[in-house]
């Protein structure tokens, strides 16, 4: 018998509606899995009391008929989301013990629709990282291991706790956030599906800000169908976020008809990197063949400014972060440094931030401060914003030529070992985002789909980039890829 916690959201929904499964039992199964998986360090706060109460209410609602799709589904929530009365600290010491007095818009929608919160999930501090190693809670360990090895691997980042929890069957789905690849890279590393919607599809209100023009919330699940269900429950207009789109949310699930005949799928030549592993190259061409076999037309496209996306991102994201993180000053919430006699408010700010922010966050705040400072603003920040325009125009040109979606690798490699990147220069770590970051800069939707395993038995994913607001179409292509690839591998349980 499959463990209940290993069900897909769609299976669980259908069985609960038929009356042969209760959310209470499903929730207990997840609680049991979580309790046995402490070694993964995926959950940072457990909210089992809240979960049990919500499950009970969901069962009533399902019995009454007409319950939303997400009703009764146990989920994990990234620590970046503010959840009322439940510790939310963006995996940072500077928000030690912070209990929001309000609920983020996205999680409010999930709870209103009957979803069940199991707890908060680990991540890189303030979502700055690609390996979960910058977390103040310590890193998450991936449930995956290389064949014949017990080396601890990263689940990726920054939504690493979300990825590990979904891959290890601790919850049926999890929320993530994606600023440069933070949903799609960990999804690819752990063999699950991760969706970064079009900028503005999900409200950012109540999600602790990293880089406001790039941040987007999205679902992380075991199947494309589950992501379609969960995204529909997360998305929607919110007057509290002025960039949230006031447009109807389509029924993403009903768009999954598996028919992509006549669709034009672009293959961007600039994503073929020097020194890219053969396995990734092969995965990519296999993926293109699968879509072609399903009736899509595969065309070569060019996105000439791709090479400049990472450097532009590492100007823009830290610049926005330096501004957003200015609020952590030891006055209104979180950590305040102990002061010496004679210390004034400047010492309080400086010591609080030195003690509260981890190394990578400090580095990015300082880079952001520098590129925005007088005399350097034009040379760095303004130039990066102009390059960003060109990157967006690259995509607009491709889409205007009739291309419906773009297929790329999700990551330049499979998951690496925890600590393996520690001694390298930070720019090496930034390269993890090379295939995903363009999508954030252009505000587009992207989805990572597990397609195969590498020679060590680790998952590899491909990314499909859609037209703005065409998540439904993008998810349908992802669904075709998922069905054709037939990826069913699960990490062998060692924990």
């Amino acid at each position, binding site marked *: 018998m499959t463990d209940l916690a290993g069900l897909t959201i769609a299976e669980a929904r259908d069985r609960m509606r038929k009356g042969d499964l209760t959310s209470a039992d499903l929730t207990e199964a997840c609680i049991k899995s979580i309790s046995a998986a402490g070694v993964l360090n995926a959950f940072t706060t457990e909210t089992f009391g809240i979960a049990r109460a919500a499950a009970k209410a969901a069962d009533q609602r399902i019995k009454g008929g007409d319950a939303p799709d997400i009703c009764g589904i146990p989920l994990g929530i990234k620590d970046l989301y503010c959840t009322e009365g439940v510790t939310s600290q963006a995996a940072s010491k500077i928000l030690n013990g912070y209990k929001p007095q309000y609920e983020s818009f996205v999680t409010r929608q999930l709870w209103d629709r009957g979803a069940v919160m199991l707890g908060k999930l680990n991540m890189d501090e303030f979502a700055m990282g690609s390996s979960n190693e910058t977390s103040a809670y310590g890193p998450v360990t991936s449930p995956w291991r290389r064949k014949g090895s017990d080396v601890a691997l990263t689940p990726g980042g920054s939504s690493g706790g979300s990825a590990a929890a979904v891959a290890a069957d601790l919850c049926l789905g999890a929320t993530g956030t994606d600023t440069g690849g933070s949903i799609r890279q960990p999804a690819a590393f752990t063999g699950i599906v991760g969706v970064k919607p079009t900028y*503005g599809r999900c409200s950012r209100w109540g999600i602790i800000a990293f880089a406001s023009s790039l941040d987007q919330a999205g679902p992380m699940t075991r199947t494309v169908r589950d992501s379609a269900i969960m995204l529909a429950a997360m998305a929607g207009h919110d007057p509290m976020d002025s960039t949230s789109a006031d447009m109807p949310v389509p029924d993403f699930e009903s768009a999954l008809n598996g028919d992509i005949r006549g669709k034009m799928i672009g293959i961007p030549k600039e994503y073929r990197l020097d020194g890219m592993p053969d396995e990734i190259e092969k995965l990519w061409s296999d993926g293109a063949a699968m879509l072609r076999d399903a009736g899509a037309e595969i065309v070569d496209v060019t996105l000439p400014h791709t090479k400049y996306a990472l*450097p532009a991102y590492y100007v823009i994201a830290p610049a926005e972060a330096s501004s957003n993180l200015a609020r952590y000053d030891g006055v209104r919430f979180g950590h305040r440094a102990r002061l010496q006699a004679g210390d004034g408010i400047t*010492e309080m700010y400086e010591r609080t931030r030195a003690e509260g922010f981890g190394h990578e966050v400090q*580095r990015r705040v300082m880079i952001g401060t520098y*590129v925005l400072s007088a005399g350097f603003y034009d040379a760095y920040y303004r130039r990066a914003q*102009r390059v960003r325009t060109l990157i967006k125009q690259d995509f607009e040109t491709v889409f205007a030529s009739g291309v419906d979606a773009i297929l790329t690798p999700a990551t330049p490699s499979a998951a690496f070992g925890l600590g393996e990147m520690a001694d390298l220069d930070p720019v090496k770590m930034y390269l993890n985002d090379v295939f995903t970051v363009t999508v954030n800069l252009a505000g587009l939707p992207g989805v990572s789909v597990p397609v195969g395993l590498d020679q060590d038995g680790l998952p590899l994913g491909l990314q499909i980039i859609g037209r703005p607001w065409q998540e439904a179409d993008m998810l349908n292509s992802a669904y075709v890829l998922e069905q054709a690839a037939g990826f069913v591998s699960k990490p062998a349980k060692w924990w």
Partner: protein
Amino acid sequence: MSIDKNTARRVAHLARIEVADDQLDRLAAELSNILGFMEQLNEVDVEGVEPMTSVTPMNLKRRQDVVTDGGYQHKILANAPDAREGFFAVPKVVE
């Protein structure tokens, strides 16, 4: 563009992050390395290109200019490291 120790000190202060003097050389080297990576942007011809300021073209919504929220001082202060008599407390700012 490489950053020297004094610039590193200035940036740390602008960012309001305390950095010990003996850490400034390391910081300067790290920042220089990252800025070096960004130098690639100078290869791009951005003549006549408008900087991107809005991800999705949209008009900001308007609403009535009325109070829609507030009246929960205790919630605002609930997470403060030091709150007294309904206010945030900080070290003396004005002499």
